[in-house]
Structure formats: structure tokens, C-alpha cells
């Protein structure tokens, strides 16, 4: 049986919980073989392949909720602090580079400091640095050297989640 090009890379990345991005050559292969990979992951592992124009990733019933929650807290806090600072948070996250120092300033001076201190992955500078590396491994950010990074298009996954909170609340109301 013949597999699409870069099959091994695609499987390795997705199984490692990474987001595959449009900038990667594997994204195009996934796009061309979306049906195959949907079936492949469902039949092989009972995982669901989610494919959008901005990212592709795998979902299973066995989900890493703790990591996902901390990622949401990280992005939520950053969005809130950027907005409070008079910045256009969505544009900054979409298009700008961040310095670790800037992140540190926002987190150490945040009014959500109690929440930050209670979170193992975000409580101090070292934890946050490790957490940023986790985000990098998952392709949610791309590190540029040791002290800078940009968000990838995978950030939209979390922004969509935030929008859904409001929509869901409106439905409840």
C-alpha cells in the first residue's frame, strides 16, 4: 500500500499533539488527503482529525484538559492585559513578536495575580518559560531565539473557543 508523501511526519506530528500549520509542507498533503487521514486516524486510533484553513490537529476522548486549560488561561490573560494596556490585542497576537520580558511584565503586574500564582505552569518566571516551550512544541507559538516568539495561526483555535463561550452564554440567556 502506498501512503501520501510525508506520511510519517504527519502521523508523528499529529500524534505528538502538534498543530500542523499552513506554512508547513505537510499541511498541503493533509489537505489533499483529508478524507484518507480522517479515516486513517479514526480507524487506527479512534482519533478525530480537525482540519481548518488555519490549522489541523487531532482530538480524542482522552484529552489533556489540564494543559488545554492552562493554555487558555495564558492566552486569555495576555489578551486581557494587552487590551488593558491600550493595545489592539487581536492584531498584536496575530501579527507581532513578543519578548519574554514583555510577557513577564504583563504577568507579574496582572490583576489576576492570584489566579497566576495558583497555577503550576504559570506561577513564576521559570514555569512560564517552560510553558512557553510547551506551546512551541505544540506549534501554538514559534520561538525566535531564546527570548522572542510569535503566535502561529493555531492561536485561532483558542480565539474560536473564547467566541464560543459568549455564543453559548447567549444561547443560555
Amino acid at each position, binding site marked *: 500500500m502506498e501512503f501520501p508523501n510525508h506520511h510519517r511526519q504527519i502521523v*508523528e506530528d499529529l500524534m505528538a499533539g502538534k498543530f500542523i500549520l499552513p506554512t508547513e509542507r505537510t499541511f498541503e498533503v493533509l489537505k489533499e488527503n483529508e478524507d484518507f487521514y480522517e479515516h486513517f486516524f479514526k480507524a487506527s486510533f479512534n482519533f478525530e482529525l480537525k482540519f481548518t484553513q488555519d490549522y489541523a490537529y487531532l482530538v480524542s476522548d482522552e484529552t489533556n484538559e*489540564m*494543559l488545554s486549560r492552562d493554555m*487558555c488561561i495564558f492566552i486569555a490573560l495576555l489578551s486581557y492585559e494587552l487590551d488593558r494596556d491600550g493595545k489592539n*490585542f487581536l492584531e498584536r497576537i496575530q501579527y507581532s513578536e513578543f519578548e519574554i520580558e514583555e510577557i513577564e511584565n504583563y504577568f507579574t503586574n496582572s490583576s489576576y495575580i492570584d489566579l497566576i500564582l495558583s497555577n503550576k505552569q504559570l506561577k513564576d518566571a521559570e514555569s512560564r518559560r517552560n510553558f512557553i516551550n510547551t506551546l512551541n512544541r505544540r506549534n501554538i507559538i514559534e520561538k525566535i531565539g531564546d527570548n522572542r516568539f510569535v503566535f502561529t495561526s493555531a492561536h485561532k483555535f483558542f480565539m474560536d473557543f*473564547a467566541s464560543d*463561550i*459568549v*455564543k453559548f452564554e447567549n444561547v443560555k440567556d
Partner: protein
Amino acid sequence: MKAEPRTILRFLLEYFDIITDLYDTQSKDGIITFEVLNQITEKHGFDIKIQLLEYKVLSNVNENYEIRTVYYNLIEFILSEFKPMLPETIEKYHISIAELFRKIREQLNGDKVLLNQRIAELSNEIRSFYEMVEKNTISLLNETRELKANVKKVDYREKIIRASRWIDEYIIPLNKILDINHSASIANKLYDVSEFSNKYRLNFDDENTRVQFERLYFQLIQVNDNLLRQSKILTNELLPLIERIRTESIILTGWITYLKNPYKQKAPKILKRKEVTVYSPDTFFNAAEIFEQFKNEEDVYFDEEEVEAEKWIFDKEHYTQKLKENLPVDNFFKWCNKTLKDDYKKVEIEKFFALTSLAFDENLLLEYTAKPEYEKIKINDLTLTVPKIKINNHGIS
């Protein structure tokens, strides 16, 4: 007594701060009460109530006041502080323009004076329509930019509501009015008027009417260009800007809601990474090894392993006894060879050497000539040269 126009204009200039305050009050409350009028004039230190009424800037409404429309529009225009108008208000021009145009077409050969008056009216209506569209675009842009900068610290939910309202109630309907491709739009109607006036500005028997049509035609060229520009502002700038405010506000509201209690909220599903990787450097070879054993379809036979001969252990006592029984032995090495041949048929070299070790038994009396005599013994393929040794006795003789 009618006031001098210059006097009125000078009055407006001199007391413009008071007039602006009155304008703000009316814009906000819809009316200027007697008390507010007194407060404003007292604040600025000038009692100009009489002049305001005398110059017809204000008019009485029951016991209150309002700025006359002509002055209100003037100040509004000067300050560029227009309030967005509902498209329904603009839509009324559709009726007036369509009606005038219908009458012009139907009574083209009727009374020329009336025709010219109708063309002039049509031109006025078109001008008013365009001004209203322009005012609306400016006001929407101002409001949007203000909301974007959020100087008034509007709550995120309120931002979503406002942005949604502007999109749904103002911009989209206004865009429909300006959409020339939409047959029911005012822009489309203006296009018909333009075609019509173009035809009759060149081909009409009355010169005055030709000139009127010519003016209308050039006015419409300008208006169409301007409307196109307004439409572009709406679709290219305003709509994305408001859409963005709405999206941002929704996301931020979502995050703030989430941050209230992230530990009780559901998190989005992301894959739990497993330590076992599907591919490892060895997996391929391991899998290949497993599958390769099934690949060969030929029958596989296993030869029965030969039962290994029991390991031979030299029984010294047995052979010492045997030697004793055979004494005297003239040639010890020959005796060894013969004994083994009798026992095993085939003499193996290790057995031979084991047996010859009896010669070192201290109890054996060995005899050999002073000059050694040698002879050859053949053991399988090996020929050994050994001395001739005689054994007469065992033990002390």
C-alpha cells in the same frame, strides 16, 4: 424688525460656545428646558436669551426651547457631528426621486416651465440624498473610531451590541441603497436618471431644458463618483473595522468570562500526548522482522539434533586393574592401543593419552633400555613415535 444678516452671523461667532452647548443639549435631550438655558447662559456670563429668540436661533416649544432646524443643521455641519441616520430616513429619497423622474418622463412634451421646475427639484433631491449619505458615512466612521479607541470605556458586551447594531441596522441597508447592481437601489435609479438626462441634454427642442438636463447629467456624474467612494468606505473600511470590533469584543468577553473561574469551565479538547510513539527507529525493523517470518511460504523443516555422545570419563581404577591383570607388559604404549581397540574399536587420541597417564603411577615399575628404543604407533590418522617401556610389576616388587 428683521435683523441684519451680518449682525446674526457676528452674534453666532461671538457666542458660539453658548450655542454649541445648546446644540449638545438638544442633541442629547431633544429639547432645551428653560432651566438649562439659564444655566448655560449663566455659566458663560452672558444673558443672550432675548437675542437668541429675536434672531430666530431658538424657537419656543411650550415652555421650553429648541434650536431651529436651519441653525441646528448649520452647527451640525460645522462641527461634523452628525448622528447616524436610519436607512429608512434615507430611503424616502427613493420615493421622491422616482416620482419626480416618472413625471419628467411622462410629461416630457408638456409644460416646459413645469418640466424645468421638476428637473430643478430632482437635482435638489439628489443633492440632499447625497449629503445625507455622506453625513451618515462620516458619522458612522466617527462613532466606529471612537468605539475602537474606547475613550468612553464602553463595556465589551455593549461594544458587541453597538457594533452589531451598526452593521445590521445602518451599514448593510445603506450599502444596499448604494448598490448600483441592485435594481431597487437609489443608486440604480440615479443611473437611469443619468442615462435619461444624457440623452435629452443633446436632443431636446427647448434650450433651457437642454441646459437643465446638462446640469443634472454632470451633477449625477459627480454624485455617482461620490456614492461609489462612500460605498467603498463602507465596505472596505467601515464594515471590516466594525466587524473587527465585534470579533475582538466577543473574544475578550469570552476570555473575561473564562478567567472568572477557569477551573470550573470546560477546556477545549487537545490530544493527550502518549509516550509510546508510533514510529521509533527500531519499530520498522521490529515490525519487518515479525512480518518477514510469515513472508516465506515454503515449508520449514527442522533437522533433529544429533544426540551428543556421552562425555567419556577416564576410569583410572578400571584400567589400573586391567593393567595389573595383564602384567608383565612388554610394550606399554602398544598395550594402551590394543586395550582401547578392544574396548571401543576405534581409538581416539584423547582416550589414548588418558590411558598412557597410568605410566605415571608411582607403584608401577617401569623398565626401559639405557639407549631408548622407539617405535611408531598409528592411532587413526596420527602416527606417534613412542619409547618402548616394559612393566613387570605393580607395587613393591
